[in-house]
Every structure is written in structure tokens, then in C-alpha cells.
């Protein structure tokens, strides 16, 4: 029966080629546009560390002076050096790391390469274990090495490929900002998207090439990038390069393995703030936040507004395309009243007619879905040609591929439902008589 209905559907679709093409094209365009934008949205709002992100927390405290204080105002997005070090040394979390970003000039040993800048992360020993950064060779530096301001560096795979042709470079020397560093580890490809642990450097497709101990950076006064927010007499600072203690410029992350530990840690942050207020460092009442990775990304509104708007626009477009298809199918089915009347008179049940018409709309959906998939692939290719920082990430994965088809077929079946039902309501006698 199915094969027969399919045959009928194809005949009917072939009879009205222009109309069929119009319906298929509308579906394909709607599906293509919405799948393109949905894929981009899906990629951009993804979990940077699946399985781990729920245990990683971003503590915020409020060290600002009393000026400009408003109730319920969020504390600063980063921490001062002194608070960061205090929280780090308190060691209340399962893992914790203090960090900031920068770029350092690198002078390759090979004379064939000009000096160039590399993106650097200045951080503390727990960083690698906490963020599950995979090592290709060697390991990270130890806490003791970090405190001793060791001239040690962990490099990314891409830099290892560039400088050492991918060989095990542990023990080799890297000359950066006029200082020699010893390579202690090489990371395998690792680039969490979004770049959740420091959103100041650009949220997507950003990866550091070297990782240095923070204490070493403080001693060498290496240049840093990112945002610095100061208050009061925040101008000057340690030496002349580092911001003062009334500036926030570092990120502090903590790993807390259970909700109970997270609650206890939040309690600790309140106590810490109170202690600092007693000491006279903090002026405001304790104002703390403890968000996990996804909450932090949400709070920082990391997905660009434009991407959301595009997605909304594309789904609006799909909706219009579907309404269009419903209208055209309705007209088409109603026009075949005579044929349907004959079939009814010859004994076909309403259910049979209904199934036949639904199969016809399903065929339109399937073809439209395939067209939509091709258009989505083309759309994503176009997105990748654009210069935005997330462009390179726009690829269709299996789950999105599957979603496309389900969406296309479901949407057209749904669109065929009303026309098919209306067409089945025909009284056969009336149709035969009018002939």
C-alpha cells in the first residue's frame, strides 16, 4: 500500500512541477537558514568542558571602596592580586588556580624565523589538572616550582610543531622577553570553546601557546592583556607595569567536587570578606558570588546578541515558509476533490486517503529536508568565510544533521495535516455529481 501511495504522490507532484518546486524550495530555504543559525548557536553556547564544567566555580568578592556602592550590585568580574593570592593560599577547594593573560615576544633559536608574539597564560600549578588539559609530553610545573618563580614553561602543540617540528621538546630552552625558559611540558591540542576561564581575550577560537608560572610573570613584569578595573587611587601599581591592589585584573577558578563543598566555599568567601573588612581592606559588606562554568558564561552573556537575533530571524523565516506550504498544499488537495471523490466512491476509506495525502506531503518534506541540508552546509561554509572569531567553529555535527532531517520531515508532515484532513471531509456523492 505504501509503495502505491508513494507512486500516487510522485505522480501528483510531477503533474504540478512549478508548484512542487516552489514548495520544496520554500521548505529547503527555511530549513537551510534555520539549521545554519541553530548550528552556530549550538556551537557558541556549548559546554567548554563537558563532564567537568559543573564542578568548576568562579568565586567573586567585592574589594571596591564605598564610592558608587549600590545594593545588589554585582561584585567585579575579576580579583585583585592580593585577594587572588589569599584565596589561592587558603587552599579551601579541591583544586584552584589564579591566572591572567598576556602576550610575550618570543625569539626563536632558528635564525630563519623572525621574533613573534605568542599568547601567554600566567597561572598557577593546579591549572592543568583542574581544567583537564592533556599533556603530550612532560607535565606541568609543581606548586613549589611556581612559588620559586621557576623559569619553566608549558607550550601548546601548535608552538611545539612550529619550533621543534613536533618532537619531544621537554628540557629544551625557549627565549621569551629576554629570558630563557625551560620547557617542562607540551600540551596536546586543547582549546576550550568558549574560552571560559578568561573572556577578556575574546570568547572563541582563542588559545594560548605558552603557559608560565604567575609568580614568574610577576617577577619579570611581563606584559599582560585583558581588562583592568581600578577604583580610588588605583592609578599606580607594583613597579610601573602591574596594576595596584585597588585594581582587579586576575581570574581565580576553584574546583569543588560536590554541591556541599560549593556551599561551604561560598560560606568561606563570606567569612573571608568579613575578615578583610575587619582588617580594613574591604569597605563593603560581604558581596560574593560563586557561579559554575555554565552559569558564568550565561551571566557574561557570552553568545553574541547578533547570533541570537539571526537565529530568531531564521526561525521566523522557517515559520513563514511552513505557512506558505500549508496554504499551497491546501489549495492543491482541494483542487483534487474530484479525484478523491472517485476514490472514496470506489471504497477507499477516509483513513486511506488521509495516509495517501500525508505521504505526499512527507515526500515534499523529505526532498525539502535534503535541499535544506545542502543549503545549511553552504550556509555554514559562508559563515566560515566571515572574519568573526567564531567563524572557524561553524561545522555541522551528527546531532545537528539528525535534527535537520527530523525538523524538515516533522514540519512538512505537520504542514500536510490540516490540508489532508480538510480534503478527506469531502462528500463523495457531491463531487461525482458535479462532474
Amino acid at each position: 500500500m505504501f509503495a502505491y501511495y508513494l507512486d500516487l504522490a510522485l505522480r501528483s507532484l510531477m503533474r504540478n512541477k512549478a508548484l512542487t518546486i516552489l514548495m520544496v524550495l520554500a521548505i529547503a530555504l527555511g530549513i537551510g537558514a534555520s539549521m545554519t543559525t541553530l548550528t552556530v548557536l549550538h556551537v557558541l553556547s556549548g559546554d567548554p568542558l563537558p563532564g567537568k564544567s559543573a564542578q568548576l566555580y568562579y568565586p567573586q568578592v567585592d574589594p571596591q571602596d564605598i564610592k558608587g556602592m549600590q545594593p545588589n550590585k554585582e561584585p567585579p568580574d575579576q580579583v585583585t592580586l592580593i585577594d587572588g593570592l589569599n584565596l589561592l593560599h587558603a587552599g579551601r577547594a579541591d583544586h584552584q588556580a589564579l591566572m591572567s593573560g598576556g602576550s610575550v615576544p618570543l625569539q626563536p633559536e632558528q635564525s630563519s624565523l623572525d621574533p613573534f608574539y605568542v599568547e601567554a597564560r600566567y597561572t598557577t600549578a593546579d591549572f592543568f589538572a583542574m581544567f583537564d588539559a592533556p599533556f603530550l609530553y612532560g607535565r606541568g610545573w609543581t606548586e613549589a616550582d611556581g612559588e620559586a618563580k621557576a623559569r619553566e614553561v608549558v607550550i601548546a602543540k601548535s608552538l611545539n610543531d612550529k619550533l621543534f617540528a613536533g618532537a619531544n621538546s621537554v628540557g629544551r630552552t625557549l627565549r621569551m622577553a629576554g629570558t630563557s625558559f625551560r620547557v617542562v611540558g607540551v600540551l596536546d591540542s586543547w582549546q576550550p570553546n568558549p574560552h571560559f576561564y578568561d573572556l577578556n581575550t575574546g570568547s572563541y577560537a582563542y588559545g594560548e601557546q605558552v603557559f608560565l608560572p604567575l609568580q614568574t610573570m610577576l617577577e619579570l613584569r611581563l606584559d599582560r592583556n585583558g581588562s583592568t578595573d581600578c577604583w580610588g587611587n588605583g592609578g599606580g601599581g607594583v613597579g610601573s607595569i602591574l596594576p595596584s591592589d585597588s585594581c582587579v585584573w586576575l581570574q581565580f577558578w576553584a574546583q569543588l567536587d560536590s554541591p556541599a563543598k560549593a556551599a561551604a566555599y561560598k560560606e568561606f568567601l563570606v567569612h573571608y570578606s568579613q575578615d578583610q573588612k575587619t582588617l580594613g581592606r574591604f569597605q563593603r559588606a560581604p558581596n560574593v558570588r560563586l557561579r559554575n562554568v555554565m552559569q558564568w558564561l550565561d551571566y557574561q552573556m557570552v553568545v553574541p546578541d547578533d547570533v541570537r537575533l539571526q537565529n530568531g530571524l531564521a526561525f521566523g523565516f522557517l515559520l513563514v515558509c511552513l505557512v506558505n506550504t500549508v496554504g499551497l498544499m491546501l489549495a492543491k488537495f482541494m483542487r483534487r476533490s474530484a479525484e478523491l471523490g472517485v476514490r472514496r466512491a470506489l471504497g477507499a476509506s477516509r483513513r486511506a486517503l488521509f495516509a495517501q495525502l500525508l505521504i505526499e506531503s512527507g515526500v515534499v518534506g523529505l526532498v525539502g529536508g535534503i535541499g535544506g541540508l545542502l543549503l545549511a552546509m553552504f550556509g555554514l561554509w559562508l559563515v566560515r568565510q566571515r572574519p568573526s572569531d567564531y567563524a572557524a567553529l561553524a561545522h555541522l555535527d551528527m546531532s545537528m544533521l539528525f535534527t535537520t532531517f527530523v525538523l524538515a520531515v516533522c514540519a512538512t508532515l505537520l504542514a500536510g495535516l490540516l490540508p489532508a484532513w480538510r480534503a478527506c471531509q469531502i462528500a463523495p456523492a457531491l463531487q461525482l455529481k458535479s462532474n
Partner: protein
Amino acid sequence: MTVHPILAALRRHKAGVSLIVLQIALTLAIVCNAVFIIGQRIERLNRPTGIDESNLIKISQAWVGAPSGDDAASIEKLDALQRTDLDTLRSLPDVKEVAASESLPLSGIIWSSDISLSPEDKGLTAQSAYYYGDEHLRSTLGLHLIAGRDFNAGDILHHTIRSTDVSPVIIVAKPVADKLFPQGDALGKTVYLDGKKPSTIVGIVEQLQTPTTASWGNPFAYNSVLLPVRLDGTSASYAIRTRPGREQAVMHEARKALLAVNPMRIMPDAWGIQSFSDIRAKAYRADRGMAILMGTVCLILLGVTAAGIVGLTSFWVGQRHRQIGVRRALGARRIDILHYFQIENLMIAGIGVVLGVLLAVGLNLWLMAHYEMARIPLFYMTAAVLAMLALGQAAVFVPARRASNVPPVVATRAA
């Protein structure tokens, strides 16, 4: 022609009519909001920066192995490096003027702080962006001085960005002067930088956009202040005004000359030497992309809706083939049949646009609540309504004319 028979006919096609009404309404709501967004983006793209943008180049570079600037001696050394570069660039042919210039409009590198009327943070303050540079900065950028004087060589300090030194004189952009001194007597007055360092306003420039185009910069988009400071650091930036049409040549020569003076520097293609037109294109590429994308989707959307109207009307014409023949046989002219379908479409589109305007306003309100959007002006609504009605008429014309070509003799034949 009476409307009655049209209404009677429409009542027999309730489902089809409601679908086309819904489609017109949705299309209107989406297109109206999208076009408004496009309009806003274009307006943003066309904002003036206040500088003379043609024949302007920015060079950003860093010295490898330069001192870190921790003590006075190393600061002097960094400053000497920078002055050598400035002299080198100045000696190039086709270069009209060169200035030490930390930042430019649209470049994104911004230092901002509050400027206030008193050191105790009382009274008026204006959040402003600082443009650090030397005595050539104003004229190199082509800023229009409307009051007071330019910086002279004696005004220029040099220090690192973290220094607590005060520049005794500043030049402000007019919006800053107007905010702090609404009476228009800003020239010669003392203001406090960062709310604490006293400084005298010696000049006022007409207009200068801040370096950021990000939304957090919108509240002070034109609050700019020029500080007479050559910033010392391991990196330095310069602005170059070239002779007309010689940008490319100067960009090429400048790279060669700077590397000849000191090869130990980093000046990558991506951000090392850029013409201002490149900086502008980069700053607004996301807005331009968004406008193009929205425009394309709108066009396709209008196309789909028009095709839908054509398709549905064609079916109705086919369905009423015999009735049209009867009407023709009873004396209706071709033009009557044509008008019949045109008025029918006008009525359907009319209901559609009324519903569409409501939807558009609702969508606009929702967007205002969730995104940075303004209220859609009446002009956009009116234009969208007229465009939708015109689209309907254009779409219906072909099937309606086919209907008007049905010969009266059809009435005598069996269907």
C-alpha cells in the same frame, strides 16, 4: 463593483484565506523589524569619527628585548627608541605629518576614566576616553580646533601608562566641555582627571569619537580628551598623515625604514601597519555582515510570500474557471474580472497588514526587552505596510490577468 460577492466567495475559502493572511502578517512583522535593524546598523556605520580619515595610517609595533620601563633610566631609553622612530617616519617622502598616538577611533584600544569639576568626586563628572599623543596629534588626525590652542612641544610629557604624573594642560572634545561647563566657558578652566589630578583645558576640538564601538562605550561615545603625553612602553604606536593617494607607498616604505633603524621589533601584517580605511572596515565588519544577512533573508522572505500569493490565487482562478466564464457571459468585462481578484487580494492583504502591524509592534517590544533595540518609528511601519500591499498587488496581477482572459464560452461547456 460591490464587495459583497467577494466576501461571500472568501467565506468559502476560510482556511486558505486565513493562511495567506497569517503569512502576510508574519512576513510584515519580520521584515519590518529586520529592516529597522538594518537601518540602525547603517546609521552606526555612518557615524563620523571626527578625524580626517583619508590618507591616514596607524603603525603599532613592539621592540624585542626592550627594557621593561621599571626605572627612570629605562623609561628614558624607551622614549629615545620612540623618538628615533618618529624622526625616521617624518623623514620619509610622501609623509606630511607624524604623531605619537596610542590610540585611534574604531581601533578598540581604550583608556577611559572620569573627569570631574572637583577633586572630591562631588559635582559633575564626565566619563571620557584618553587619547595620549604628542604636539602633532591634533593636526595629524585632522581634528578641528574650535577654541583655544594646540599643544606645543613644551607641553609634552613622557611616561608609562601606570605613571601618576599629571599633565597640566589638556584638550577636550566639545561634548566633554559642554557636559562639565554647560554655560560654554570651558576654556581655561581646571578639571580633575581620574577625579583627582588638576589640569587646565587649553583647547576644545569639535568632534572626536572614542576608540571603542562596543555597546558599553555608547554612553560616552564622543567624550574624548587629548593628553600631551608620549606613552613609553615596550610597544609604541604612531599616526601618519600621507600626501593624497600615497597611503600604500608610505605603508611599504615605513616598514622598510623602521626595520632598517631597528630590526628587533614585531610589526605583524595583521595589526602592525594599517590604513585607517582598514581599521574602519574591521571595526564594522560584524555590523555590515549582519545588515547584508538580514537584507538577504528579507528579500527571500518577500519572494516566498509573493510566490505563495501567486500559487494560491492561481488555484482559486482554476477552481472558479467556470464561474468566471458565467460572469463574462452575463456581461462582465475583462477589467471587472481583473478588478475582482485585485480587490479580493487587497482585502486579504489589508487584514494581513493590520494583524502584521500588531505582530510587528509586539515583536519590537519583545526585542526591546531582550536586546538593545529602539522603538520602530512610524515611518518604518508605514513603509512596510505599503510595501506589503504593493507586493500583494504585484503578485496577484499575473493570475488575475489569466482569469480575465477566460472566454465567456466556457460557461456553455461542462466543467
